[in-house]
C-alpha cells in the first residue's frame, strides 16, 4: 500500500480524527499538465474531507479512459474496470452494500458512447451515487478520436475533415430519462462552482449526474476557449435549492434563477445553446431509489435452511 495509505493505518475513523483533503489523495495524479482531471480530483478531495467520509467505506468506480484513472489517485477503495461499464459495477456495489458511499468517474466516450445504454438505465435506477462525467469532448487516452460530444466540425484523427454530426448533449439526454433525479453541469475553470456542485450532488439522495466541462490540453485545449475567456458567455443557474456561490457573483454577471424542481424549464434551458449554462438543471429528492425499492430483510442462515426445507415440500415425491 502507498505511504499515504500506510500513514492512515493508525488513524481511527471516529469523530476525533479529522482527515484533511490531502489525506484522501493516495498518490499524485498522472495526467498531462493542464488536464481538467486535476481540478476534479482536487474538488473531490475537498468534498471527502468536508464530509469526513471514511476511506474504507467509500468506493470510486471508473471505466477506461484518462478520467478513469481517477480511483488510483484517491485513498479509498477503487474499481478501475472496463470501457463503458463503470455504472453496472457501481450499481452492483450500491444495491448490495447501500451503506457504502459510491462515486463514479467516467469520460465522455465511456459514458455517452460505449456505455450509453448503461447510462440511460443507471439514470433510471436512480441508485444513490455521485456520477462525475468528465467531458473533454474527445478520446484522449487513445490519442485524439472524435467522441459523441465533440463539436460538429472539430477535427480529430478519425474525422480529419471535422466531426460530421452535431454533438450529443448529455444534459438533454439525461433529462429525458424517466426517474432522472439530479442533472448538473459545471466546468473545470470554475473550481468553486465545481466544488459546490459536487457537494450538492453528494447531498442528493439519488443518482447525481454531474457533467464536468473540461479541456484536454493535448487535443481539445480550445473547445471552451470563448467561455473561458469571456465569462459573459456563461450563465449561472442559481437557486436556494441549487448551487449559488457568492464568490462567483462578481465574475459572472449573467445569473438566472432556476428552480431545479422544474423539469420543463430544465429541459428547455438544456436545449438552448445561446450561452453555456452551469448549475443544477434538475433535482428532485423525492424520486424512488432502486436500492431502497429492492431492500430485503436479512434472514439468518438457520432460517434460510428452514425455509428451503419447506420449499422442498412443493417438489416432494
Amino acid at each position: 500500500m502507498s505511504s499515504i495509505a500506510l500513514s492512515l493505518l493508525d488513524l481511527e475513523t471516529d469523530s476525533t480524527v479529522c482527515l484533511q483533503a490531502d489525506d484522501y489523495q493516495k498518490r499524485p495524479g498522472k495526467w498531462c499538465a493542464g488536464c481538467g482531471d486535476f481540478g476534479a480530483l482536487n474538488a473531490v478531495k475537498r468534498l471527502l474531507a468536508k464530509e469526513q467520509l471514511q476511506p474504507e467505506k467509500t468506493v470510486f468506480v471508473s471505466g477506461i479512459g484518462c478520467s478513469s484513472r481517477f480511483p488510483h489517485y484517491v485513498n479509498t477503495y477503487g474499481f478501475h474496470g472496463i470501457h463503458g461499464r463503470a455504472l453496472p459495477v457501481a450499481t452492483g456495489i450500491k444495491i448490495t452494500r447501500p451503506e457504502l458511499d459510491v462515486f463514479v468517474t467516467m469520460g465522455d466516450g465511456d459514458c455517452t458512447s460505449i456505455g450509453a445504454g448503461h447510462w440511460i438505465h443507471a439514470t433510471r435506477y436512480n441508485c444513490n451515487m455521485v456520477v462525475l462525467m468528465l467531458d473533454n469532448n474527445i478520446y484522449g487516452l487513445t490519442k485524439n478520436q472524435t467522441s459523441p460530444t465533440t463539436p460538429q466540425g472539430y477535427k480529430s484523427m478519425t474525422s480529419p475533415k471535422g466531426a460530421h454530426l452535431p454533438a450529443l448533449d448529455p444534459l438533454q439526454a439525461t433529462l429525458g430519462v424517466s426517474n432522472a433525479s439530479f442533472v448538473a453541469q459545471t466546468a473545470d475553470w470554475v473550481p468553486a462552482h465545481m466544488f459546490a456542485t459536487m457537494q450538492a450532488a453528494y447531498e442528493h439522495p439519488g443518482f447525481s449526474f454531474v457533467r464536468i466541462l473540461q479541456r484536454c490540453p493535448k487535443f481539445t485545449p480550445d473547445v471552451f476557449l470563448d467561455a473561458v475567456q469571456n465569462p459573459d458567455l456563461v450563465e449561472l443557474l442559481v437557486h436556494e435549492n441549487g448551487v449559488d456561490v457568492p464568490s462567483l457573483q462578481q465574475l459572472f454577471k449573467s445569473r438566472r434563477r432556476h428552480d431545479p424542481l422544474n423539469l420543463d424549464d430544465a429541459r428547455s434551458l438544456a436545449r438552448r445553446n445561446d450561452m453555456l449554462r452551469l448549475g443544477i438543471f434538475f433535482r428532485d429528492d423525492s424520486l424512488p431509489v432502486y436500492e431502497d425499492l429492492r431492500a430485503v430483510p436479512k434472514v439468518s442462515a438457520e432460517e434460510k435452511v428452514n425455509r428451503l426445507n419447506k420449499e422442498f415440500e412443493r417438489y416432494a415425491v
Partner: protein
Amino acid sequence: MSKAANSVDIQEVPEHTVEIITNSGEGAQKCAQIFGQTCAKMGNGVWTVEIIPAEIEPPHHTVTSTSGNIIRFGKDKITNWGDQSKLAIAFNDQVLLSRHRLDSLRDDCIILLEAAWEKSEDEELRRMYDEAMEEMSSKNYKFILVPYEEEALKIVDNPNHGKNMFALGILAEIYGRDLSIIEKQIANIFRFKPQKITDNNIKLVESGMAWAKKNLDFRFHIPSVPFDEQRIVMNGNQASALGAVAAGFELCAMYPITPATSVSHDLAEIIENYGGFVHQSEDEIAAAGVAIGASYAGKTALTVTSGPGMALKTEFLALAIMIEVPLVVLDVQRGGPSTGLPTKVEQADLLSSIYGQPGDAPRVVLAARTIEECFHSMITARRIAETFRMVVIVLTDANLATGVQQFTRPELDVRWQQGAIDQSPVPEGLRPYEWDPETGLSKRVIPGMKNGQHTVTGLAHDEESLVSYHPSSNELGMKMRSRKLAVFQSTLKPPEIYGDEEGDLLVVGWGSTQGAIVDAVDRARAEGRKVSTVQLTFLSPLEPGLKEIFSRFDKVMTVEINYSDTPGDPYITEETRRYGQLAWLLRAHTLVDIDCWTSCPGQPLRPRDIYNNIIAKLESTEEGVAA
C-alpha cells in the same frame, strides 16, 4: 399379458414413453407436468422433455406449431428421453405429422388422435388430414380417435382450456395413475386461481378416465419400486435456482434469454425470502457487471445466461478473472452459433467457456450431468469461486433445463449459507494480492475493511494492485492466476469408470448426455461388448488421471452434442477434420488419438444412435488409440 374381468388387456412393461402433442397454447405442458409428477410420486423413475416451438403461439394446426412433451417413465431410474415414443396423445394430425417426420414415434405407437378432423366441415382440413394419414401409413401406428374437444366442451366453454386435462384423465386410466395425487397436483398448479378452475380441471380428468374406461380395451402396468428415501422432482432450471438459494447466493443479475430465463423466474419467486434478490439488468453485459460489482463488495453473486449472453459477458468475465473477484456464471447452453436454436439443446459452449477471452484468463468450468447435479453444482461453484477468487462457469443445457426427474432430497447444510468474508480490519502490511508463491491464493479484501483501501484494475498489476507494465510483474500475475487452477485440480479425483476398468472402447462424455450414453453402453455390454464410459464434470481444469485411464482401452471416443466433421465427407481428411469440442480438448490434453461421434440435431441424443456408433467404432478397422 393378462386379461382383466371386463376384457381389458393389462400389459405389464418395465417402462413406457408417452408424447403429448398439441398446438402451442393447448396446455400440453401442464398435462405432462402433472402426469410426470404423478408417476414420480407413485415411485416410477421419470424423465420428461419439452417440445417447444420457437414462437409463443405460432399458427395452429401446422407442422411448425407443435408444442408438447415427452414423458418416459419406468420401474427403474430413468436418466434420458430414450429412443421412441410408444403412445401419443395428439390434438391434430399436423402436429402429429411433425413428430412422425422426426422419427420420434415407434413403429407400433398407439396414437390417440383428436376425432374432429377426420370429418371436419372444412374441406382443406379434411384434405390435410387425409394427406397426413397417407404419409403416416408407412408405419404400423395404431390410431384411436378420441373426441377430446367434444368432451371438453361438456365441462368448459373453451376447449383449449380443457382438452389437456381430459387427455390427462385418459392417460391416468391407461396407466392406472392415482387420482388423488393428480387432484393435489391440479390444486397446487391452480392455487392462485379461483377454486372453480381447480374443480373444472378435476372434472375433466374424471371425464377422461370415464371415457377411457368405456372405450379403451388396453392398459399398461408399470411396476413401481418402493423407495425409503425422501425425493424431490423438478426440472434442471428449478434445481439450479433452488441450488443457488441453498448455496447462499444473495444476488442473481440476469437478462432474459432462452433457455436460461426460467432459473430467474424460479429465483424471483422465492429468493427475497432468503434475503436476496433478482436484478434484471438492461443487458447481458450489465448483468455481469452488476454481479461483479456485488461480489467485489463482498456479496455472493450469480449471473445466469445462455450462449449469446455468454458471448456478451466475455469482457467482463476476463475482468473478474484479472481482478480475482469470485463470480459464478450459469450457462444454460442452447444451439448455436448466433441465435441458433434458442429452445434446443447443444453442448457447444465448452471451448468458448474455457477460452472465450482475449489473453490468458484461467477459470473453472464444470458441467452438471444430471438434474440433481444442477442443484449441487451451485454449491460447489460458490465454494470454488470464493476459495480460489475465481470465475466458475457452470454449464447445463436445454435438455437438463426443461427435463424433469426426481432425485434424492438434498440435505441442506447451514454452512453453505455463511457470509463469505470476515470483515475485520486488514492486518498491517497485507497487500491486496498477497499471492502465496506456491498456490497463487491470496486473501480477499473488500470495501468496508479498514486499512485495506486499494484500487482493483483490469490493467496488469502487481501485488499491491498498482498498475504495472513491468515484464516480471506481468508474468508473475499470469503465473499466479493460472497456478490456482493447478491447485484446484490437485483436489479432484480421477473420474469413475462405468463398466470395466479396461476394454476395447471407452466412451467419454460430459454434461447432460450421461443418461443416454450409459443406456447405450449398457446395451452394448449386454451383448458382451467390452465398452466402458466416463462422464466428465470438470472441464477446466480437467479431472486427473485421464491419460492413464485412456491407456487401458484400445479406442477412445467422445460422444457430444456439437459439431464435428464426418470422416469421408468432401474435403474432410485427417488434416482438415474438425473434432467435437471435448475431443479437441482431450486430444490436446493427453496427446491420445481420440475419436469423436457428435451430432447436433437440436435434440437430446438417442441411446440407440449412440449404441449404433459404439458398434461402428468397435467394428471399424482403422487404427485405434496410438499406443
